């Protein structure tokens, strides 16, 4: 990106997202560069979480920002720029997942038996503040590994709802699923992650019981 600096008083407030988008729309590449630096980490994390592949995540990161820049004119400004960017990145992620021949478990359209009861096996209270017992890097590894163990259909829904904090409706629209399907998959994703994390974070000495 050009090395042109964003006009800003030292120590002054950062420009709003909307102001940066407006300037980027008028061809101000420094403003677009500021948007990139605000969101690149989150977009990369999301793409990596969904695809579970570093190379794909990097391609998605690049393609998403390129597409966003090239289509800024069609961005209506009714939603937040970040939400729009996430949608682009999710579509790129899903496309790559579907293309990847080696991954035969990928079908976001796969019919999930929604009537099937969720299974809960691990019942134990957690240690207080487990996040204090691990370094941030260790925690990230634990959380990433747990997400990696989910089926892609559950991963995508959980990442959008609980990591990106999109609404159920936005998640449904982004993934092309019904609201009911998002809710059903989210419940299963949350319970599966809870199960995996409980094995790590449970308070020592607590009994593990079978359930449901």
């Amino acid at each position: 990106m050009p090395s042109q600096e964003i006009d800003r008083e030292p120590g002054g407030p950062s420009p709003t997202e909307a102001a940066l988008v407006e300037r980027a729309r008028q061809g101000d590449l420094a403003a677009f560069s500021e948007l990139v630096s605000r969101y690149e980490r989150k977009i990369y994390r999301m793409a990596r979480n969904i695809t579970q592949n570093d190379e794909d995540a990097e391609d998605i990161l690049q393609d998403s920002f390129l597409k966003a820049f090239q289509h800024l004119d069609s961005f209506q400004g009714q939603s937040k720029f970040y939400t729009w960017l996430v949608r682009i990145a999710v579509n790129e992620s899903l496309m790559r997942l579907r293309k990847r021949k080696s991954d035969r478990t990928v079908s976001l359209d796969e019919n999930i038996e929604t009537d099937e009861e969720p299974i809960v096996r691990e019942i134990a209270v957690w240690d207080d503040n487990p996040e204090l017992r691990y370094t941030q890097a260790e925690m990230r590894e634990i959380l990433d590994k747990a997400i990696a163990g989910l089926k892609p259909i559950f991963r995508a829904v959980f990442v959008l709802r609980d990591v990106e904090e999109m609404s159920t409706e936005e998640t449904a629209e982004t993934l092309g699923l019904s609201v009911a399907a998002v809710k059903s998959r989210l419940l299963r994703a949350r319970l599966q992650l809870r199960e995996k994390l409980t094995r790590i974070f449970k308070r020592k000495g607590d009994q593990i019981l079978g359930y449901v």
Partner: protein
Amino acid sequence: MVTCKDFLRELSDFLDENVDPAVREDLERHISECPNCWVICDTTKKTIQVYKGMDPEPLPEKVHDRLVQILEQRCGKHESSQ
């Protein structure tokens, strides 16, 4: 009367505060009487919190550099073609 299976089915909506007040009351009564469901509810809530609270890690330097490079090349061209 809410059973454990009923509670599990409603758990996500319960945690998202997306259930009717009457249903909420029934579910709250159930977890106050069922230790297993209380634990499941508490640990599911903590699962969500722990993911929400995790900042994304810094982008690997090379990934950032390649992104900047490709945007410089492609967006610069885009601008000059207008």
